[in-house]
């Protein structure tokens, strides 16, 4: 079974995702238990796989026994093993939140598991077309999840996401097509060797392919100016979905971008065509600044968090594009750390909205005393995002800045350092409102069991929901201790990635 681990990791959630639909014939609420069982299995398998990779090196698997480069190959190295495990664990964590909060329909859990399948597939694949397939699976499941909200605005947001996401995926597919035309292969490792030989790095064909593929993935990562689907999707989706998608979908898309940069185009390409590297870095820096500027002007907290993601992913992509070992370690640490922090923040907003009805920055005023635990976790997560040490948000930034300084790229260093202040600009006012301002939303007196829930206040908040928030906040600080071990794992993978 160990040999089949990579494919099992993808097959399990697909199979698991079809069960709730069948089980709904028997029971309406079968979705959650099925999803939990499946994901526990997923997490165990992913853990096993990650351990195998860390002890015996990169694992390759030919799907269906068809050998590469004609068959689909799944490749798991230190980086993808870590990300696959991360996806499994975070999905399981968000389930704890979804038990009380999320939509309870079986269709929802079916889509949930399908999304996990898509994300895991994107992580473990070693074939660029296969990546497209899983990218689309991820996209479709995500569109469906976003649309599962109750309001019409959720449907509109999902439609917007669908259109823009499909455009992005199509761009990526076009790029794949050009690569196929240039080299005749779709396998990543094969492409890496053939790209330099069969088509020159600075030929129009290869450059176009690069531009299209990176452009397509940047839509999914939601960098400025291709981010427009994200604020609507995050703000209008159910809270569970916002937490889940914000933590994982853009994260895995950014991982795919890194995989593309290092395993397909390789650092040689980036060195041979400096324009490509610096264009990507420039785009990332613009995203950092623009995302923060847009976040400051937001009134709704969830939209603000969405724009914050735009800014933070700029940081991550900048780290990947600088492409030195230090910078890549930093970008990965920040990628995963950000996922935890952003997921926790969305979960916290969900809890606060249910308990108090507050959704806007002004509405959060004075909530430090009404929802003390959630507000405190929110404050801790905000400070972690700003980059106050010793939280994990600082460590990623430190590495990326270190990488940028070692590369001698001073404008980027300035933007990276400024990002701390920019992030502070929009988070500090929330923390200030929480604790140091008078409340604008007052609790209704004599809230009875049957009180109408017109503004969302008074809906039950389960222990699981609060536990997710608290654990996210604790992890935001505690993960710093795990960074040395993680760096070790990455350092074994990176030399192959960065010196090909």
């Amino acid at each position, binding site marked *: 079974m160990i040999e089949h681990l990579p494919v099992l990791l993808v097959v399990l959630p697909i199979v698991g995702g079809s069960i709730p639909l069948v089980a709904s014939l028997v029971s309406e609420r079968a979705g959650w238990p099925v999803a939990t069982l499946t994901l526990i299995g997923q997490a165990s398998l992913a853990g096993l796989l990650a351990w195998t990779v860390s002890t015996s090196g990169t694992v390759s698997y030919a799907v269906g026994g068809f050998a590469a480069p004609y068959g689909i190959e799944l490749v798991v190295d230190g980086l993808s093993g870590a990300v696959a495990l991360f996806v499994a664990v975070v999905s399981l964590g968000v389930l704890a939140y979804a038990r009380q909060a999320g939509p309870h329909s079986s269709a929802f859990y079916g889509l949930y598991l399908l999304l996990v399948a898509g994300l895991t597939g994107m992580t473990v694949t070693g074939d660029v077309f296969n990546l497209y397939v899983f990218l689309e699976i991820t996209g479709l499941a995500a569109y469906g999840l976003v649309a599962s909200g109750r309001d019409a605005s959720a449907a509109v947001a999902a439609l917007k996401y669908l259109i823009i996401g499909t455009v992005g995926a199509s761009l990526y597919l076009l790029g794949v097509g050009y690569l196929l035309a240039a080299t005749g292969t779709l396998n990543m490792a094969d492409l890496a060797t053939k790209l330099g030989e069969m088509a020159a790095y600075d030929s129009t064909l290869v450059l176009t392919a690069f531009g299209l593929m990176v452009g397509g993935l940047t839509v999914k990562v939601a960098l400025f100016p291709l981010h427009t689907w994200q604020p609507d999707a995050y703000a209008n989706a159910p809270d569970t979905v916002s937490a889940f998608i914000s933590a994982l979908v853009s994260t895995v898309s950014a991982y795919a971008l890194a995989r593309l940069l290092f395993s397909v185009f390789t650092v040689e390409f980036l060195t041979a065509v400096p324009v490509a590297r610096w264009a990507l870095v420039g785009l990332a820096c613009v995203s950092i600044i623009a995302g923060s500027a847009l976040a400051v002007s937001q009134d709704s907290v969830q939209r603000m968090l969405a724009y914050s993601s735009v800014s933070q992913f700029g940081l991550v992509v900048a780290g990947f594009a600088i492409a030195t070992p230090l910078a890549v*370690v930093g970008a990965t640490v920040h990628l995963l750390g950000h996922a935890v922090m952003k997921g926790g923040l969305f979960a916290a907003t969900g809890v606060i909205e249910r308990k108090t009805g507050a959704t806007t920055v002004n509405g959060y005023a004075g909530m430090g005393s009404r929802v003390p635990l959630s507000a405190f976790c929110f404050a801790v997560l905000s400070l972690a995002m700003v980059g106050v040490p010793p939280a994990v948000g600082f*460590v990623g930034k*430190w590495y990326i800045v270190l990488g940028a*300084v070692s590369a001698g790229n001073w404008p980027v260093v300035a933007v990276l350092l400024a990002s701390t*202040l920019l992030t502070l600009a929009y988070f*500090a006012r929330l923390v200030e409102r929480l604790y140091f301002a008078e409340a604008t939303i007052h609790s209704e007196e004599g809230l009875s069991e049957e009180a109408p829930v017109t503004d969302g206040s008074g809906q039950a908040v389960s222990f699981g929901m609060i536990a997710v928030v608290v654990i996210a906040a604790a992890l935001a600080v505690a993960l710093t201790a795990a*960074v040395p071990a993680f760096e070790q794992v990455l350092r074994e993978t990176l030399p192959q990635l960065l010196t090909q």
Partner: protein
Amino acid sequence: MTDISSLRPLLAILVSAVAIPVILSLKRRPNVREGVTITVAVAKFAIVASMVPGVLSGTRYVFSFGQLATGIELAFRVDPLGLLFGLLASLLWIVTSFYSIGYMRGLDEHAQTRYFASFAASLASAVGVAFASNLLTLFVCYELLTVSTYPLVTHDETDEARAAGRKYLAYTFGGGVAVLGGTVLVFVLAGTTAFTPGGLEGLATADPTLARAAFALLAAGFGVKAALMPMHSWLPDAMVAPTPVSGLLHAVAVVKSGVFGIARVVLDVYGTGTMEQLGVGLPLAAIAAFTLLTASIIALRQDNLKRRLAYSTISQLSYIVLGLGLLHGQALTGGLLHIPAHAFMKLTLFFCAGAIHVETHTDDISDMAGIGKRMPLTMAAFAVAAAGMAGIPLVAGFVSKWYLVIGALSLDGGLVFAAALLVSGVLNIAYFWPIVYQAYFESPDGHDEKPLLEGPLGGRDEVRADGGDGHESDDADDHSDEGGVPKPEHVDHLGKHHENHEHHGGPPAGGWDDRGWRGGESTWFMLGPILTAATLSLLLGTVPYTAVFLRIVDTIVSNLPGVMA
């Protein structure tokens, strides 16, 4: 210099960090809560003081969490310089805690639990800054200090408090970003950020432009908290905080951490040799001298006592930075000694201002004529501390200033700096003496004019840029707060719970009543700390060596390679 591994540095930091949840849980039992604060403060001081004999004899206490990541090693090491700051912070926290009890209860303040918990957090971070053994650990504790002191600055929860808090965060995080940039550069240039007496070798041999850039970043970043101009303006606005917080910010934790950071950079990251080689000492000293004089001049025009003290602080901190920038033995001694000297004196002054506020609700100097009758002990302590600020013998400020001036004079071209110091001394007298004089020798009915305060800028005749009609002179606004919103500089402390409070300071009708010299003027919770701080200033001024601080400073300077003491 022997390094021994010990838990004491970590314990000194954690003892108050651990107290935070305890304090937060004691909201309903204020006396126990205050008891916890005092116990923890005494414990902290005891731990730090226990390290003094060892450090003076050449031992350094080390505790390390190990290498967490490339370039990130969280480690603490108690050496003489760290001990100087740590001892100061922990000693003054005890004094401030007693004073806080008197102040907060005297004003019946809200959110006292948050206040005391934030204090505990701030002191933990401050001692962390003191004992950090490399730039990165110092940065971590520096940022945590910002986060812990923010709730104290915004304590009042009024619009001005929030605005001051925002400004504070913007400035201090901006400084933190500069420090981070400088730290990264130093790490890349030298391969390590650990503090090494005499400086890191890698910096001596690195590209001078990069080394200078790193120094500029570090000096600017720490200079924000050290209130070097032009990054000083957060400090007067932060006066909106409760007075013990202003005392903490201005004497103990925040500003001294900025100055301490600069000291570490000058002495243990770059070292005096590299500093001279790069030629960055002189610009630093020049900025310090400029700040010295300008802040003193601005202070002349402040009517609100706390704002005047704020500008005085900005000025006095630059004494320390000037000493550091001059890079030579006696100037260094003077600068470093001024860290505790100024702390004791400024804390006394702020405590006096706070006591005056609590007892009489007076914040403006123009309302304080004759107040020596009402608060004789307080004004006596004020007089002593003010004398020390000006550099009058017997008080702490004289000793440090002596070393500074002698050190400056012994350098080529140091005459300018010595002159600046002496002029500043005169300016100090100019803005402190009237307060003391009018307190004892004048009365509310018969007091002299204060042209520096009341006169319009530009002279007696109205000078209008547009040459318009002569209006009523501007200085009428300075004193009228009837019917209008009081100007920010006149408002010490309009907490949201005090909105309805009549905030006219000044003597009651019939003049100040006489409270005598036996302590009837205020509670001993406030008088005790005031007199303690004043006594400490006198002790440091008369027996600086026995009062251990000068001995510590001498140890620091004698350990620096290549510096003549």
